[in-house]
């Protein structure tokens, strides 16, 4: 298993290099310009000077290699310095955003908490809802519960979050009076720090809507996988054998069937974890959560190449990493699978 992991990690290096180069080329070749969003009152000579100072006019390969060196060497050192208080990082330049002229990683770090809070919680909520829903739906196939579960998950799957989000806002922020305890804020306050009970309540309230909107979507997806996987296993011979041996129904379903059914579901859950870090572009926009998703979309609109490239690269790393984790979990869940 260890050799397998090491082999996969080594193989990831050329993959990531290739991905980073492709991202760079796509972003660079797209006809976007960091000064495009400026008012027309700013004359072209000044725009040219701005582009020059941003280094947009350097040869493409130089720009890429500069970025790569900062990405794999300088920035990790800065991160280590930040965590452990060391001073290893060189004084030189860092990856600088065109929009803020400030280090991209500080910006990413600032956005991470709200994204993890909102999108992460919604993922957990989604999984917590989805697993029992899928298990019961499969065990009581074609019952009222199953029909209802199918209906809700189809709804959650097919209604887009920009619709459910705005619908929730209209119901809970506009129709319900602000003094009511059911009223929920439509704008997420990223500066709120949870220090006592009152701020916790505020944080809880402002998270309800975005978490529910995203959680519904996640639950819909995962519960379908869970149900399908359970159905596959419920009809297997070993289940009949277990029942024939006189095992209780609870043991049969929750120990034998569930463990076997979890294998594909765990893969799906693990493979979707990078999306948590990626934020939820639409839901973040709707509720003004301003996490990683909003960072990326604004950077794309502003032609902010360093941010787009860095954030996309982080996603690429996470996706490669979680693919590996999913494969390893496979082996843990199913002793028959061995990679060595």
């Amino acid at each position, binding site marked *: 298993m260890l050799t397998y992991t090491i082999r996969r990690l080594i193989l990831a290096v050329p993959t990531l290099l290739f991905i980073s180069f492709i991202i760079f080329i796509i972003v660079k070749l797209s006809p976007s310009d960091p000064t495009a969003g400026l008012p027309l*009152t700013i004359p072209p000579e000044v725009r040219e000077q701005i582009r020059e100072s941003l280094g947009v006019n350097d040869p493409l390969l130089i720009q890429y290699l500069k970025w790569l060196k900062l990405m794999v060497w300088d920035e990790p050192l800065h991160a280590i310095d930040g965590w452990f208080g060391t001073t290893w990082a060189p004084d030189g330049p860092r990856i600088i955003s065109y929009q803020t002229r400030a280090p991209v990683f500080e910006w990413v770090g600032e956005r991470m908490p709200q994204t993890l809070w909102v999108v992460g919680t919604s993922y957990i909520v989604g999984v917590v809802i989805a697993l029992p829903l899928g298990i019961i739906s499969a065990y009581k196939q074609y019952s009222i519960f199953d029909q209802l579960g199918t209906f809700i998950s189809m709804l959650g799957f097919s209604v887009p979050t920009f619709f459910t989000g705005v619908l929730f806002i209209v119901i809970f922020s506009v129709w319900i009076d602000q003094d009511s305890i059911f009223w929920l804020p439509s704008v997420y306050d990223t500066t709120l720090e949870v220090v006592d009970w009152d701020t916790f309540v505020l944080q809880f309230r402002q998270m309800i809507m975005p978490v529910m909107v995203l959680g519904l979507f996640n639950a819909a997806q995962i519960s379908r996988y869970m149900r399908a996987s359970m159905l596959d296993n419920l009809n297997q011979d070993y289940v009949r054998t277990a029942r024939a041996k006189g095992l209780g129904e609870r043991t049969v379903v929750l120990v034998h069937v569930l463990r076997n059914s979890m294998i594909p579901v765990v893969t799906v859950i693990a493979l979707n974890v990078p999306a948590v870090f990626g934020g939820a572009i639409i839901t973040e926009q709707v509720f003004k959560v301003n996490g990683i998703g909003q960072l990326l979309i604004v950077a794309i609109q502003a032609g902010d190449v360093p941010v787009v490239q860095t954030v996309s690269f982080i996603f690429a790393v996470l996706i490669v990493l979680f693919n590996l984790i999913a494969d390893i979990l496979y082996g843990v869940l199913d002793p028959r699978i061995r990679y060595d």
Partner: protein
Amino acid sequence: MTRKILMLGAAALAMAPMAAWADGHLARGGSGHLNIIYWQAPSTLNPYLSGGTKEVESASLVLESLARFDDTGTMVPWLAADIPTVENGGVSEDLTQITWTLQEGILWSDGTPMTAADAVFTWEYCTHPEGGCAQASYFDGVESIVAVDDLTIEINFVNPTPFPYTALVGSESPIIQAAQFADCLGARAPECTEANFGPIGTGPFVVTDFRPNDVIEFAANDNYRVPDQPHFATVTFKGGGDATAAARSVLETGEFDYAWNLQIDPTILAQMEAQGNGTVVTAFGTSVERLHMNQLNPDPALGDIRSTAEAGPHPFLTNPVITQAMSMAIDRALLVEVGYGAGGQPTCNVLPAPELYASSANDGCLVQDIAGAIALLDEAGIVDSDGDGIREYEGTPLRVLYQTSTNAVRQDTQALVKQWWAEIGIDAELRNIDASVFFGGDPASPDTFQKFYADVEMYTNNFAGVDPQAYMANWACDEIPSPATQWQGSNIQRFCDPAYDALIDEMAGTADLATRGELAMAMNDMLVQSGSIIPLIHRGGVSAHANSLGGIRMSDWDSELWNIAEWHRIPE
């Protein structure tokens, strides 16, 4: 020095309760907390490094300039004691020098005094060749800025400058603190993240927390020069979402007090306003949505030379009769109703404001006249000779390619205009291009508004401040974009008239305001009557504020938030 500050502080503390007795809401900080939402969030608070409206306006809470423009477009002294003019001796007779005097006793928010040296430093900062300063045009033609003494700033111009109120005037050209930015000149500007995100200013508020493209927290500046201002103690400046959501948060949910730039469907905005929580406000500056009619030939068959002088004149858009008919066919009032609501007014001028410069010679276009347009074309012998419903001019059918940026309102406008033009026998093919490409100015892209590989294009332009001299000079012959200039240049419709260039020169040498007004009107009329520009809509800024918020005097001539120190909560 420290003692003086302490005494000032003590005086302020002593005065605060007195003001509070008079009216608690109008004391410094007496109105509590203010929530502002800008759906496009600021990415830095250094307006010299960004140039975007969102950055300039958020920074205007902190950074100030010598003079600002109020809601009527009138210049008001801000950090300066008064406005220098030729009459009061502040501007030299030969128009090459202006001398500003700072008010006495102005302190930075860190307690140190502001001096003329800060103004000089600001000029050095923005004109540094490696800095990429976004507001460098404010210092165009400035030969030097000299600190005569602590309070006197002397600005020398290379040439006589009849309108010398550009450098260090208005929200886009504020004074920054020399002490804070001393190590941030030129290429080192990006290293100063802390300064760029939290500039020290003289304005009513100080930055307490800045998160790029997300939120800014401000608190009242204890050293602000007006004792009872700002009336608000703290401000949250939130960004993100979209215009509709921002409008909703003020007009429907009431979570925010002020929302900016609400260019949304006018009927939706009116419905939200009808809920009674807030008010929609507008301010009109110089923004005009217009059609540029290409005066050079953009025929794709010409390949790389299309839309350049080598391609020759446009086959029919250079004929004023045709463009006049195209203008007459448009119902501007309906365009306003469909797309702009309170945020637009029909206009026939490319220079609709300030009042001094607004011509009334072209107002005939305000009323749609399709029959008149048809008659005009018929009289000129421009008729449909082959029966396909499209008129021909000297054998060329009147078919135009009409392009603009991708935007719901613009596409509605395009569809309506196409229909009206069809009624007078002119066919339009519509095209829309993503705004970041269209306005992106990439010389390699064929789709930029500068290249103008089309017959007609539509967008909005305006000028900052109140003086139209530089703006009107946009249409000089040598401003025509071409491959030789990397397609840079502001004469987008490729209009060229030596008589117009002569007027530009004349304006550059005229100081008298009334004569400048006449010249500007003459230039406006010349442009519009040439048919090379068809003005459509005078666009204003649209914002909304909660009904409990008082003191708002929205200006499109300066930052919308220019008088935020005077904003206050109206007691219920």
